[in-house]
């Protein structure tokens, strides 16, 4: 990185990219040229800053200024005022989403305060399309150290002692996984990076690949050295074009620099990486399914054992790790296992990246030390609930996880505590829900997803989840009976106990944890036929408040089914049997006379 130049960083993460951050970069570049500033200033498109709600973000490095919600037409003002005249553009300065006050520098940004960035160390800092900037931040130093100073077993021991566990969801100790593959004898072995981020509402891996692709390449090579593999494969979603593009550029650069290919760092070690594209199947996040998919087959999971570390891709020993897990490896090698294991809780070391989304003020990507509480994440880093509404629950672990409520807010987040609380870490999606979200409807949403994504191989998951979904649909339509709740619980447990793979074993988690935490809500759906969140349409009743109704007939004229009757200047009445609950009357009424119960 050229420190002498003033650097203007533009966030090129997916959120900001879809809000024209590319054309912002272009216009700033042109403006710098037009003002004759090319010698003193440059603009760089980086990975995600993690401030997605306020995007697109532009950061001027030398005086640590953050601009939010920048549009291409603002580029000129930023260059003219800030760079030429040295005056910050007040109206664009990043404001705290809660207090609306201008924030001075990264230290002032509340959501950065509690964060520890290891996996995201370079995201939003370097230009992801430049290998030199990665190298300038100690990039490929860990690979060099391992190849020239350490043998494979020493390296594996460092990873083992660091306590690093798989960040894809399962939390299996990474060092042990590597050791198992290393111990398997074979003429050919593989390293696979699982970048098939299928959990809806999670975008951690995508951001790492887009913001710092070299860290994953470096770690895969280290893993290859440790396990005796000379081929690496990245299994990446075809839906992530930007990540694919950046990864391709990074692999090409690494080859040119001799950091991939034959005799790396002048040693006997050779390693190269290829890409394999996923085609949209959630189940392919499961490692055996992923391997079948890479072989060109349907992504159906198979029994373990044999584990991939014994017989994986093409029947050869294969180490499968997730993107975030790999991104943690180089800093552990460089800074030592003592440093890494000093962060976190007893059994979960280091940090975890979460994608914070849903009804929260600061949507975005965060990296926090294990052991932080949900309260700190949601209310301090996340800035609390949108629109000042009441917090209801947070879903962790996506469609395989469960919901956590008010009473769980103060437990330290780590793998084991989340499981004990009835949820799981998962890959790091964190969806916050407020009082307007119905827990029956949410469970139905997650099951619809699982039904869609079940590979169909085994009956409990294929048939059972469909039945769970139908039961929930029956309840949301107002036809549920009390026994249905017990049926959901019983069937859910059977599916958990009898499914083959992780998808089936965890698919009933959302509904079971929601019943567990919000039993009263399920009860009021089936007994009182009421949805207090006002989500389940079939349970809503539209009524006219006689005191407010002036008899203007607007509602009656708006009603598509003629369910509203009443003479002019007299109180109108809705026939609930005819009403289709479209809400047209409520929209039309100017006197707040139509209400929903």
């Amino acid at each position, binding site marked *: 990185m050229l420190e002498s130049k003033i650097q203007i960083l533009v966030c090129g993460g*997916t*959120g900001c990219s879809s809000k024209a951050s590319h054309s912002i970069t272009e216009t700033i570049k042109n403006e710098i040229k037009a003002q004759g500033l090319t010698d003193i200033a440059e603009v760089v498109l980086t990975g995600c800053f993690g401030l997605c709600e306020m995007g697109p973000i532009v950061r001027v490095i030398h005086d640590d200024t953050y601009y939010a919600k920048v549009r291409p037409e603002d580029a000129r003002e930023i260059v003219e005022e800030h760079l030429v005249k040295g005056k910050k553009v007040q109206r664009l300065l990043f404001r705290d989403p809660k207090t609306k006050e201008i924030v001075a520098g990264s230290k002032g940004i509340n959501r950065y305060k509690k964060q520890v960035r290891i996996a995201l160390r370079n995201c939003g800092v370097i230009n992801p399309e430049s290998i030199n900037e990665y190298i300038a931040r100690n990039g490929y130093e860990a690979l060099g150290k391992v190849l020239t100073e350490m043998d494979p077993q020493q390296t594996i021991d460092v990873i083992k002692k660091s306590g690093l566990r798989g960040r894809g969801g399962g939390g299996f100790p990474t060092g042990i996984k590597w050791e198992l593959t290393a111990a398997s004898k074979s003429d050919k072995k593989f390293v696979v990076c699982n970048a098939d981020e299928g959990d809806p*509402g999670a975008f951690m891996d995508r951001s790492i690949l887009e913001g710092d692709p070299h860290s994953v390449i470096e770690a895969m090579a280290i893993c290859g050295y440790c396990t005796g593999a000379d081929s690496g494969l990245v299994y990446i979603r075809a839906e*992530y074009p930007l990540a694919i593009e950046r990864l391709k550029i990074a692999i090409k650069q690494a080859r040119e620099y001799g950091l991939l290919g034959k005799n790396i760092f002048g040693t006997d070690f050779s390693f190269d990486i290829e890409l394999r*594209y*996923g085609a949209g199947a959630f189940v392919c996040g499961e490692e055996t399914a992923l391997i079948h998919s890479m072989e*060109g087959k349907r992504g159906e999971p198979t029994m373990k054992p044999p584990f991939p570390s014994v017989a994986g891709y093409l029947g050869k020993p294969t180490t499968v790790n997730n993107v975030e897990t790999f991104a943690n490896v180089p800093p552990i090698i460089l800074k030592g296992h003592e440093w890494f294991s000093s962060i976190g809780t007893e059994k979960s070391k280091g940090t975890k990246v979460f994608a914070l989304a849903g*009804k929260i003020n600061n949507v*975005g990507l965060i990296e926090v030390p294990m052991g932080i509480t949900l309260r700190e994440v949601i209310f301090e880093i996340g800035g609390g609930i949108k629109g000042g509404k009441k917090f209801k629950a947070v879903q962790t672990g996506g469609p395989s996880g469960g919901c956590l409520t008010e009473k769980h807010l103060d437990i330290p987040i780590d793998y084991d505590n989340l499981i004990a609380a009835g949820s799981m870490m998962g890959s790091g999606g964190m969806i916050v829900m407020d009082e307007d979200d119905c827990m029956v409807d949410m469970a139905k949403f997650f099951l619809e997803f699982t039904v869609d994504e079940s590979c169909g191989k085994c009956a409990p998951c294929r048939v059972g989840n469909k039945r769970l979904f139908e039961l929930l649909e029956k309840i949301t339509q107002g036809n549920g009976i009390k026994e249905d709740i017990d049926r959901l619980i019983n069937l859910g447990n059977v599916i958990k106990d009898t499914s083959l793979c992780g998808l089936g074993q965890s698919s009933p988690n959302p509904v079971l944890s929601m019943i567990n935490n919000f039993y009263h809500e399920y009860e009021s759906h089936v007994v009182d036929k009421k949805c207090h969140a006002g989500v389940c349409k079939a349970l809503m009743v539209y009524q006219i408040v006689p005191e407010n109704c002036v008899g203007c007939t607007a509602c009656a004229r708006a009603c598509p089914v003629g369910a509203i009757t009443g003479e002019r200047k007299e109180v109108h009445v809705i026939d609930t049997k005819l009403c289709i609950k479209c809400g047209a009357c409520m929209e039309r009424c100017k006197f707040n006379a139509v209400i929903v119960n």
Partner: protein
Amino acid sequence: MSRIKVELKKKDVETIRDICKSFENKPGELINVLHKVQHTFGYLPAEVQEVVAAELNVPLAKVYGVVTFYSFFSMVPKGKHPISICTGTACYVRGAENVLNEFKKELKIEVGETTADGKFSISCLRCVGACGLAPVVMVGDKTYGRVSPEMVKDIIKEYEDQ
């Protein structure tokens, strides 16, 4: 699924064969081949699958099995302006379903269908990773953020004359 008869021109068959050859006709490259073929033709009708099966020397049933397993592959042509509504969790809690319903109502088609004039098709996708902009809609490669049902008409209008 409605069956659309497609007659492949000799040139098309050659194109598919060339794609297979670029992957050395390896059965293990089936998914990569299908990605490339779909990219070229826009979709994967049965006739195309037959050629791929013959070239890679795998049973047609296996090719069909793979095509129908993965949501990225489609056996029906998409509209000129494919509309994808994100129904990931973050978008869902911020009202993606209402947006989806509005598109269905405006275009009078269901998810997975294409309008009679071939202009629009609707599909759902799970998370584009832009949760800060939820609910998100994509038309072709363009992303629309914070979409409300009221915006749907205007979005469609942008493409109607194209």
